[in-house]
C-alpha cells in the first residue's frame, strides 16, 4: 500500500509542472505591474545573490561529481573566506572606502587571490584530514564527518573572529564608493553590484575552460566517471581529488569575498545555511553539472530576492528557508536529475 505512492504518470507530472510554472509567471507579472521599480531593484539584487550562490554551488557540484560526498563543511569554508577577506582587505591593506577606485581595485584583486588561496588550501587540508582516510568506508561515514567538520570550522571561525556580527569596515560601509554607476528604470546600479558580476563571470569561464580543456580537468572527469579505471590509466586519483577540493575551495573563497563586499558584514554561522541554499541550487541544476549549478544558483538567488523583496502576494522573508527547502525536496522527489542533468538510474 505504502509503496504505491507518488509515482505519478508522466502526463500528470507534465501538467503539474506547467501549472506551477504558469502560477509562478502570473505571480511575476502581477508583481511587475504593481510595482515595476521595486521589481527591477529586486531583480538586480537576485542576480548578485545568484552569482555568489553559483560560486559556492560549483564547489558542491565539483566535489559531489567526483567523490559523491555532500561536503557540508563547504559552506563554512565559504564563511572563513568572508572572514579572511575582512582581515586582509580592512585589517592588513587598510581599505575602508576612503581610497580612490584605482587604489581599491588592485588591492581587492590581491584580497581575492588571498581569499581564494586560503580557502583552497583549507579545503585541501579538510579533505586530507577528514575525508581521505574514509575513502573506502561506508558512505555515511564521510557524510557524518563532514557535518562534524562543519561544526568544527564554525567554532574555529568564531574563536578567531568572534561570535558577533562582523562588519567589513568599522563604519559598516562598503569599501566601494556608494555612487550610482548608472540607472535602470530609475533603479541605481552601484559598484558593489557590478564587482560581483565582474568577478563571477571570468571565474566561471576559467573554471569551465579548466574542466573542459586542460589535463587536470580531463583527469577530474575521468576520476568522476570511474575511479578504479582512471587509476589503472595512470591518473593519480588522490591528487586529482585534492585538486578538485582546491578548486572548490578557491571558488568558495571568491564567493566569500564577493559576499562580504556586497553585504558588508558576516557572521560565524551564516556559512551552513548559505551552503545549504547553494547545495539546493546545485541539485536544482542537476548535481555534477557545472552549467546546471550556475543556472540553479541564479534561480535560487532570484527566488530568494523575489520572496524577500516583492510585495504582491509574497510570503516574505520569514518563509525563505522553507521555500528553498521545499524546492529542494520537490526537485529530489520529482526530478532528481535536476533541470539540466541526465536521467540516471541510481540517482533516486
Amino acid at each position, binding site marked *: *500500500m*505504502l*509503496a504505491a*505512492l*507518488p509515482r505519478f504518470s508522466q502526463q500528470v507530472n507534465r501538467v503539474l509542472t506547467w501549472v506551477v510554472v504558469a502560477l509562478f509567471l502570473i505571480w511575476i507579472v502581477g508583481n511587475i505591474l504593481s510595482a515595476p521599480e521595486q521589481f527591477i531593484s529586486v531583480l538586480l539584487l537576485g542576480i548578485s545573490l545568484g552569482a555568489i550562490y553559483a560560486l559556492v554551488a560549483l564547489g558542491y557540484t565539483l566535489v559531489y561529481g567526483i567523490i*559523491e*560526498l*555532500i561536503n557540508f563543511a563547504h559552506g563554512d569554508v565559504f564563511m572563513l573566506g568572508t572572514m579572511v577577506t575582512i582581515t586582509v582587505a580592512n585589517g592588513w591593506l587598510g581599505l575602508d572606502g576612503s581610497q580612490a577606485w584605482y587604489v581599491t581595485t588592485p588591492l581587492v584583486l590581491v584580497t581575492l587571490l588571498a581569499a581564494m588561496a586560503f580557502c583552497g588550501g583549507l579545503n585541501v587540508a579538510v579533505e586530507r584530514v*577528514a575525508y581521505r*582516510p*574514509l575513502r*573506502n*568506508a*561506508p*558512505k*555515511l*561515514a*564521510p*557524510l*557524518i*564527518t563532514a*557535518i*562534524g*567538520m*562543519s*561544526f*568544527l*570550522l*564554525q*567554532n*574555529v571561525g*568564531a*574563536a578567531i573572529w568572534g*561570535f558577533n556580527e562582523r562588519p567589513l569596515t568599522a563604519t559598516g560601509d562598503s569599501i566601494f564608493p556608494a555612487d550610482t554607476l548608472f540607472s535602470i528604470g530609475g533603479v541605481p546600479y552601484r559598484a558593489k553590484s557590478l564587482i560581483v558580476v565582474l568577478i563571477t563571470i571570468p571565474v566561471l569561464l576559467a573554471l569551465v575552460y579548466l574542466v573542459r580543456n586542460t589535463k587536470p580537468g580531463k583527469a577530474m572527469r575521468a576520476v568522476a566517471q570511474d575511479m578504479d579505471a582512471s587509476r589503472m590509466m595512470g591518473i593519480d586519483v588522490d591528487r586529482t581529488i585534492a585538486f578538485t577540493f582546491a578548486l572548490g575551495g578557491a571558488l568558495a573563497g571568491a564567493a566569500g569575498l564577493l559576499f562580504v563586499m556586497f553585504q558588508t558584514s558576516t557572521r560565524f554561522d551564516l556559512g*551552513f545555511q548559505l551552503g*545549504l541554499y547553494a*547545495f539546493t541550487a546545485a*541539485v536544482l541544476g542537476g548535481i555534477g553539472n557545472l552549467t546546471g549549478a550556475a543556472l540553479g544558483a541564479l534561480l535560487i538567488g532570484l527566488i530568494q530576492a523575489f520572496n524577500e523583496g516583492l510585495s504582491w502576494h509574497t510570503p516574505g522573508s*520569514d*518563509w525563505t*528557508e*522553507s521555500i528553498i*527547502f*521545499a524546492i*529542494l*525536496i520537490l526537485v*529530489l*522527489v520529482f526530478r*532528481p536529475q535536476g533541470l539540466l542533468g541526465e536521467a540516471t*538510474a*541510481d*540517482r*533516486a
Partner: protein
Amino acid sequence: MMERLGLGDAWSRVPARVRRGLLPLVVFLLLIFYPSYYGDITSAIGSSSTEAQLVPTVPTMVIMTVYVIMALGLNVVVGYAGLLDLGYVAFYAAGAYVAGWFATQQFSPHNVHILSVGVPSSIQGFHFNVWLLLIVACLFAAVFGIIIGLPTLRLRGDYLAIVTLGFGEMVPQAVNNGDNWFGHNITNGPNGLTPIDALGFGALHNEVSFFPSAYYNVTNAVSYYYWTGIALVVFTLFCCIRIRDSRLGRAWIAIREDEIAAAAMGVPLMRTKTWAYAIGAFFGGGAGCFYAIYKSSTFPGDFSLNISITVLAMVILGGMGNVWGVCMGGAVLSYLNYQGLEAVGNNVNNLAGTSFNVPQYTYGIFGFIIVLMMLLRPEGLIPGRRRRVELELGVEGGSLYDASA
C-alpha cells in the same frame, strides 16, 4: 572474574538470563535512588567547591533521560535501518507542540477538559490528561514521520539525509511563523506556548500517597519528573530491544546491510523503511512532549538543527545499533551539553588560572568528537557485535547503506 572472587561454580550455576540482567538491574537501582544520595555525593566533595559542579544535578538528569529517549529513537532510524536522518528535531517539535496545544490556554475561548489533573476547570483552553497526551504526542509524531517518509524514503542515502535536513529546518520555521497561518494563531510564534500543565495522578493520590495529585504540589517535583523520565527510558529500551529482535527489526538490519539482497529476499523496502521512520518519530515525539511538560513551555527556538546533530552524535558516539551504547552516548553528551562542559571548563580555569568560556564552543567540541570518532572508531564506544563486523569487513559487493536502488 567471579571465580576469582571465590564464588566458583556457584556463579555459573545461576541461569544465564539472570547473570546478564544483573548489571542493568544494579545500574537501574542506583539510578532510581539518585535523588536521595545526590546531596551526599556533593557534600562529600564539598558542596561549594568547583569539583562538586561536575556531579550531575537532578534537573540535568531529567534532561539526560529526555535525550536518551531521543537517541534511542534515532537509533531505530540510523542504527537499525541505516537511514541517515538529519531532521530528527522535527519529531521532537511535533511532540512538544502536541503538549503545547492540548495542555495550555492557547485556544482559550474554547474550554475543553478531558480527564485533566490539577487544572481547575475555570482555566480555559484545551486541557487533556497529560499521560494521555504523552501517548497522543508519540502517535502524532509517528504519523508525521510517515507523512515525511512517504515521499522521501525512496531517495538514497545522502539525498535522504539532505531532504530530512530540509524538513528539520522547515518545521521550526513553520512553527515560528505559526502565529499567523492564514490569519490564525496556531503556535503563538516566537513567544511559544506556556505554561503547560504539569504531570500528576489526580485522585490516585488518595489511594497511594506516594503519587502526587499534581507534580507542582510536592517540593521534590524534579525527582518525580526524573523518575517519570527513567520509567519512559525503561519503556523505550524495552520496546527497542523487543523490536530489534522481531521480524521487523531483522528486516531493518537486512536493509541496512544490503538493500538489494533484502528486497530479493522479499523484504518490502518502502513499508519497512517507513516503519523505521514512524517508530523513530514515535519516541522523538514522546521525548519532546515530556520535555515540554517538564519545562512547562515550548518555543520554536528549542528546535534548531544543532539538536538533530547532537542526537546523531549521541548515536554515533555510543555505537550505532547498540541500545546500551546509545544510552551511554545520550547520557554522556547531554550531560556535557547541559552541565559537564561548563563544569569541566570551570575546573580547568580554576587550576590553570585562565578564563576560557568552554560552553560557547560546545558544538565545536561535538563536531570534533564526531570527526574523531568517525576517523578512529567508527563503530562507536560500545558497538553492536554485528555492526563491528559490518564496518570491518564491509558488505559483499558494495557499500553498506545505499544499494543504489
